[in-house]
């Protein structure tokens, strides 16, 4: 089950933000998407997740076309994304945020709300146990009852990650997960992403500017430059690619 992009194109007025990108991102691998600012990384994320559908081309996940589907439908199929700025559900506590992420839609109906159905309660208890286990794992068990808007930026980032896991994803799409995270915690984050992939087969597609972080954990790297795919390959190959060096470090003067 792979995430497959075929000639995906997205323009804003006259600006070509994503220029006929074709790529295969395996569902059980860690794939990195790098590129300088304005290369179209987040636009591509928005196209994949239905927030801003592509103008042309197709996107499929497994055997399903997902381009043109609404965001909630893409998420239901198992593609769970995070956002660059982790605002989250400001007035909900960490526990409430995690439970919200874990609740399937058939529990969130007015009929269940009025207590006319029994499915909600059992589900709620199971999710609560999972939330406690996960927060303990991430070292944020003491924050369970703290409101999201009272968390530090780093903790909010961690919550964003935990929330995505509670939604039982088939593949994670992480938009700059290492930004605003303390250097000491970046190591923990990369271990976690790697472990999820190796032990549970949960792959990710990651955008980040922190190249050393990405090079450590990625199985495959795609480089975007001005909307187009410049290079794809394993990290060692990408690191040695003169074109990539040029994009990141600028033209070498003769």
């Amino acid at each position, binding site marked *: 089950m792979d995430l497959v992009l075929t000639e995906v194109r997205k323009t804003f007025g006259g600006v070509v933000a994503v220029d006929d990108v074709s790529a295969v991102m395996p569902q059980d691998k860690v794939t990195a998407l790098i590129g300088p600012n304005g290369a179209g990384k987040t636009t591509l994320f928005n196209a994949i*997740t239905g*927030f801003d559908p592509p103008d042309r081309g197709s996107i499929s996940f497994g055997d399903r076309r997902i381009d043109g589907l*609404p*965001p*909630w*439908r893409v*998420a*239901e199929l198992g593609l*769970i*994304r*995070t*956002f660059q700025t982790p*605002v*989250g*559900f*400001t*007035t*909900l*506590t960490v*526990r*409430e*945020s995690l*439970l*919200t*992420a874990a*609740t399937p*839609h058939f*529990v*969130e*109906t*007015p009929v*269940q*709300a*009025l*207590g006319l159905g029994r499915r*909600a309660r059992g*589900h*709620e208890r199971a999710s609560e146990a999972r939330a406690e286990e996960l927060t303990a794992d991430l070292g944020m068990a003491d*924050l369970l*009852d*703290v*409101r*999201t808007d*009272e*968390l530090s930026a780093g903790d909010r980032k961690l919550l964003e990650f935990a*929330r*995505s896991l509670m*939604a039982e994803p088939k593949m994670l799409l992480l938009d700059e997960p290492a930004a605003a995270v303390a250097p000491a915690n970046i190591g923990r984050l990369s271990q976690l992403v790697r472990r999820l992939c190796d032990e549970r087969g949960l792959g990710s597609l990651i955008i980040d500017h922190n190249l050393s972080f990405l090079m450590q954990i990625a199985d495959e790297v795609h480089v975007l430059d001005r909307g187009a795919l410049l290079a794809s390959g394993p990290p060692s190959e990408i690191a040695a690619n003169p074109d990539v060096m040029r994009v990141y470090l600028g033209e070498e003067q003769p």
Partner: protein
Amino acid sequence: MTNPIFWVGVLTLAAIYASLAMALNVESGWGGMWDLGIAGLLAAGSYCYVILTADPDLGMRFAPGLSMWVAWPLSALFTGLVAFAIGAPALRLRREYFLITTLAFAEIIRQLVVIQADFTRGTLGIPNINRPFDSFVTGRDYNYVLLVIAALAAAVMYLVTRQIGSSPFGRTLRAARDNEAVALALGKRVNRMRIQTFVLAGILIGATAPVYLFYIRAISPQLFAPGITFTVWTALVIGGLGSIRGGLAGAFVLIVFTEAVGLIEVDPAHINILVAIEPMLVGLLLVLVLRFRPDGLFSERDSFGSRRTQAERASGRAATASSRPTAAAQASD
């Protein structure tokens, strides 16, 4: 001034407004849909009830003369249908556009009532609406019966909305209000849930409508001018948007305050001045409450999750924090 019957009436009206404020809280407090069409939904429920139960002798074109116990749930359901008809197009809009649209729909409903005089008797109105148990208890004693009915309705509304608030449905509703993009990214069917909530609030308002009619006793279109919407909103904002107890407390504070202002004894020559400054005093009350309790008497923060904040836990002041809401309630008495 110390006439108990007068205060029984005030408390009855307060209980009715409390029910409406608690229903409004579901859609506006938790759902984040700022609905200015409460008067329209109340009109839909009221006229549905009145038409279904009206005396055939009044000469209305459709008067099935149903029992009030049948008509009551039917008006609630009908109001839910009307809410769906309004919500389906209006919920495509956001924020102030939604607010203006709901206000417009409420006015459309009121004008429809005026124009469709064959069915509604238009501006003539309908007097002497039947009330439950009024053959057993008559005269002034009936006011006590009415207070019990209104209080029971408010109690049921409290329990129902509390159940909604503590459910996964209510939680996701608040989550989508806080951050729609994140809710969508987690697979939440945000639009569908908002329409469901809007219809649910419509049903709750429609269920309250007959109690309002028992109190008013006669119906006419001008009862459903936008003023009633703003009174319900003022009550909820004073009490605390997002909190059920807020809707309850806010309605009692506002209605008792407004009626008490009317009791101020002035020279008959100056009565028009008193009438004129009454809205100013209500405005002053609102400003004062929001100055000292920006989230209202009760806030959503007190109603959900833990009352302990990170800072309080760090300094070990958690025990004092949990007593805050009670202290605030006493201060407002």
